[in-house]
């Protein structure tokens, strides 16, 4: 194994969108990890604090935990192979499907954990080398609803339109469907500071999560009713004379339709829909509207619904109606999930998008990007299928027949996962580029072992829109290559020998040019600036531009500079509880695991802390089912079944059960989830479906 002689490298965590600053120093510990993670107190987002995942992030760098040679499938089983052989097989597999079924039969599936450079080059690879319309990524399952709503309202999808530290200076923060105390613990210091500063924290969640424990007020709606809740609050804002009329007049359009929408969500009706008593609605509306500054933060709990876009829009409406946007200390932000969830959605791995958050259907955008790429704009494909639709079509007559998958594990993370797994098996050819042999890689024809965050340089854009640089601290082990190398080699094998560098800096320089003039403009951002300035906030159109920490203070990014209200209406979830499936199921995360768990399940400390799935249920429900703590439960939905032990807690609604989704096999929560899609964002309905719960054994 090669190790470079370094003393210390400042970089960022491989996991969530907070992208905590951390310092890596060489190590020779008993776990075999070649580096050790230290605090880096100077970085403003986490100021040294790290969670258990961050502290143990070096674990998967150890040789035993990961893949160190390509694998190819022979006679049904995976065997080690040379890079030459593996890459030849991938190129042939992709080319073959294109030849036989047309270019759109070749698909690419990316991930929100990929660096900007990788996401950019992956999109370019799809459009220039494969010339397929079918590229999308797992970020569709994360932030797409918030992205769509933010873009519609503000003209720009910058997850947080302010630095995270602003949260501590607001007077009232409403956190809707987010649990940062478990999903991004270092962010909690900003919530604690908020309260120390006298600000109020209101948490909206069907569960009394660790985050809800920190709140001044915990509002516990029925799953799938956040939209109604937001409009019910808006109704009370109107009725109690708390509208910010001057702000509405000066900086927004479309309020009258939204007023009517709020009148259709009168308090008694909203109480009925949400289960939140009117006096509580009144208290929340009053606290938020009367505060001089206020922030609403949404996360997956509000967004992962077949009405996720409209739900975020309703919370934006509440902010706009009370003048809580485009001002210091106020605004609506999305707590982005994946490490590069923000950057990953800006540079062209999304089915309808070109680098710089440009639209693939905009002729000017196509011309600009085609010029940077040195191709004819007419050769660029149009928009393709969204993530779930792409996966649902795998191996089907009009669907993708050969897939290159990079940085994602849909066997565990996709909704209706058994169905998606079956579809993956129907592919003519599957290539997976990953760090470990994930559950999806196990199905592949070729597995390409790639470098990890500490072994390669690249930029990521955190939840604040702050572009950060992860620097290589050591070289990857023998037998491991980078994703950029993979793309360069595949491009060359498929006949494109220029424009695919494996040097991240060269790729970033091209990304700057491609994004220049687009909504997510990186033109003025350089690796040197990022190092010197603790990151640079986009848009940053020129090297002498300071970057934009708070983009909407003077005007919103719409053509007329005004934010747009959206007249939306509550609608029920795709599936309602009934006699056969009488309860709500909601899914989520735990502190010690990340996403599909491909990395974190392989870290012994984390696996010990969170060894497997469980089902949270209320004591009253447990009593009715005759279940005691620890009993194995079988959960059944119309799509599948999962088994996990009971964890009885009064912190959940009696009509709802919760199951975390980080595990494969029998305990896979996504065997149960519903693939109903949001009509705008194409987000699946991960967060709510109807379920039946039985003691395992009783159901046979």
């Amino acid at each position, binding site marked *: 194994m090669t190790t470079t002689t370094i003393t210390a490298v400042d970089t960022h965590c491989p996991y969530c969108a907070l992208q905590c600053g951390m310092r890596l120093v060489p190590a020779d510990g008993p776990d075999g990890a070649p580096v050790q993670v230290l605090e880096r107190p100077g970085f403003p987002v986490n100021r040294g604090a790290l969670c258990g995942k961050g502290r143990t992030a070096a674990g998967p760098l150890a040789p035993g935990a990961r893949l160190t040679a390509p694998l190819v499938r022979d006679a049904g089983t995976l065997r080690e192979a040379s890079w030459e052989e593996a890459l030849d097989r991938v190129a042939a597999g992709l080319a073959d499907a294109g030849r036989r079924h047309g270019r759109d039969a070749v698909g690419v599936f990316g991930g929100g954990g990929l660096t900007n450079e990788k996401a950019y080059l992956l999109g370019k690879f799809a459009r220039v080398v494969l010339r397929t319309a079918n590229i999308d990524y797992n970020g569709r399952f994360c932030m797409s609803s918030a992205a769509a709503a933010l873009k519609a309202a503000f003209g720009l999808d910058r997850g947080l339109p302010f630095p995270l530290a602003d949260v501590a200076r607001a007077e009232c923060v409403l956190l809707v469907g987010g649990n940062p105390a478990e999903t991004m613990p270092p962010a909690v210091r900003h919530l604690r500071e908020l309260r120390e500063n006298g600000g109020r924290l209101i948490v909206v969640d069907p569960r*009394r999560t660790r985050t*809800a424990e920190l709140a001044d*007020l*915990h*509002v*516990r709606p*029925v799953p799938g009713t956040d939209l109604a809740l937001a409009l019910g609050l808006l109704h009370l804002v*109107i*009725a*109690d*004379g708390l509208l910010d009329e001057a702000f509405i007049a000066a900086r927004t359009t479309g309020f009258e*339709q939204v*007023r*009517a*929408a709020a*009148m*259709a969500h*009168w*308090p*008694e*009706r909203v*109480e*009925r829909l*949400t*289960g*939140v*008593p*009117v*006096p*509580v609605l009144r208290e929340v509306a009053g606290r938020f509207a009367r505060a001089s500054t206020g922030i609403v933060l949404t996360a997956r709990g509000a967004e992962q619904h077949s009405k996720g876009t409209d739900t975020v829009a309703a919370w934006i409406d509440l902010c706009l109606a009370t003048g809580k946007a485009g001002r210091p200390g106020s605004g609506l932000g999305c707590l982005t999930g994946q490490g590069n969830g923000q950057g990953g959605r800006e540079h062209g791995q999304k089915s309808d998008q070109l680098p710089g958050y440009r639209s693939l259907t905009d002729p000017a955008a196509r011309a600009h990007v085609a010029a940077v790429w040195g191709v004819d704009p007419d050769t660029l494909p149009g928009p393709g299928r969204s993530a779930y639709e792409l996966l649902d079509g795998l191996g089907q007559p009009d669907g993708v027949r050969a897939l290159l998958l990079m940085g994602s594990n849909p066997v565990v993370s996709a909704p209706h996962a058994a169905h998606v797994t079956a579809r993956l098996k129907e592919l003519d050819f599957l290539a997976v580029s990953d760090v470990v042999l994930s559950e999806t890689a196990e199905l592949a024809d070729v597995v390409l072992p790639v470098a990890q965050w500490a072994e390669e340089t690249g930029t990521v854009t955190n939840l604040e829109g702050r572009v950060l640089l992860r620097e290589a601290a050591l070289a990857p082990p023998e037998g491991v290559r980078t994703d950029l190398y993979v793309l360069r080699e595949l491009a060359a094998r498929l006949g494109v020998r220029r424009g695919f560098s494996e040097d991240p800096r060269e790729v970033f320089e091209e990304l700057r040019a491609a994004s220049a003039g687009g909504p997510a403009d990186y033109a003025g951002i350089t690796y040197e600036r990022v190092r010197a300035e603790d990151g640079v906030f986009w848009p940053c159109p020129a090297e002498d531009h300071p970057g934009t920490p708070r983009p909407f203070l003077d005007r919103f990014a719409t053509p007329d500079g005004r934010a747009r209200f959206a*007249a939306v*209406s509550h*609608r029920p979830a795709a599936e309602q*509880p009934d006699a056969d499936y*009488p309860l709500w199921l909601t899914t989520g995360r735990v502190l010690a695991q990340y996403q599909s768990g491909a990395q974190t399940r392989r870290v012994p400390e984390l696996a010990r802390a969170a060894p497997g799935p469980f089902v949270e249920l209320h004591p*009253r429900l447990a*009593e*009715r089912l005759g279940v005691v703590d620890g009993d194995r439960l079988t959960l059944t939905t119309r799509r599948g079944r999962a088994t996990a032990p009971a964890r009885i807690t*009064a*912190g959940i*609604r*009696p*009509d709802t059960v919760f199951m975390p989704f980080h595990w494969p096999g029998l305990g896979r929560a996504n065997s149960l989830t519903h693939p109903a899609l949001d009509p705008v964002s194409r987000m699946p309905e991960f967060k709510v479906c109807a379920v039946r719960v039985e003691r395992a054994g009783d159901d046979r």
Partner: protein
Amino acid sequence: MSGRIAVVGAGMAAARLAQQLVERGRGDDVTLYGAEPHRPYNRTLLADVLTGRLDAAAVGLPCGAPQTAVRTGCEVVAVDVRSRTLTPAGGEESGYDELVLATGANPVLPPVRGLRTADGGLKAGVHAFRSLADCARLAEDATRATRAVVIGGGVLGVSAARALAAVGLPTEIVHQGPYLIERHLDEGAGDALRGALEELGVHTYPGNRARALDGDPRVTGVRLATGYLLDADLVVLACGARPRTGLARAAGIAVRNGVVVDDRLAASAPHVFAIGDCAEHAGITYGLAGPAWDQADVLAARLCGTAPKTVYRGSRPLVRLTAGPLEYAAFGETGETDGTDVLRIADATRGPYGSYKKLVLRGDRLVGGILLGDLATVGDLTHAYERDEALPGDPLHLLTTEGAA
């Protein structure tokens, strides 16, 4: 189904139907014919309009405009179900493919002497409280008045009295029933509500009937059957509402209390449906917004073809008043009959005027309940009722909160 959908009425049920049709992609060629001069508005908010909390212009409801055509001040006077045509007052006959009756209900005027003037209108100072126009007249009149009497102590009467008290008008309720809102509350809750209203300055005369209105041309007092005279220069009539069925009846459509509909919300004539306060389903006319919207949603799903097999199986309505300190909720069977168990907690120390809670259970099912004063558990209770959930062994904790809202 396709073609022209004509909706007679532009009230809450009609607005919801139209909004749902548009949301489900079926908004073209839908016309609402409304007799009132206003576009659809939220009738449940009239008390807030009366107190000035909401502006009369601000309570409009979404109705799928601009795709939906709304004809205001346009009362439909005739329907021919054979030729599938309808005729608006003073207008041209026009055809429809599907007709939806959403004509609502009229206020019931009590048999009280001196109610009307010689020309048949209500005496000066006497008001119904059903429409935005009623509300505007009443609000204006209230600024001149010194004492008000509300005739009728049901849901509407209590709401009106509370609103009048809120604008500073000394107000009394004359109620024929033995206690307030006897249709939905029990005696304990009715009495507790009476006490709460007393705190707001509203005095109630239960078990009393208004016999005559004094005064000419303007009302000066309400004479009770007991002979007692209540001084009043403002009188609000809140004696319930009756489904508006004249149009349906004249068209030969089956009517009992309301326009009779089946689980498809179809009336007796082909291509005719009825929803909302005018409709009678399984013998019930609800007269409440919640069931009207349930019906509108079902009919929209059917007419759009998005879910053509959807049927309406009745609603589990809730009556609810939320007016600052005055709060109650009642649902289901609140009386005590054979085979039910009743759980009742009265706590004089809770809230500004004490609390009263009652649950009615049949076996392990919650079949009715009343909450007054302390509504912290209303969400969980109404959900348990609505979903007909089996309850745990000890239902007492349904009446206690668990820290979270």
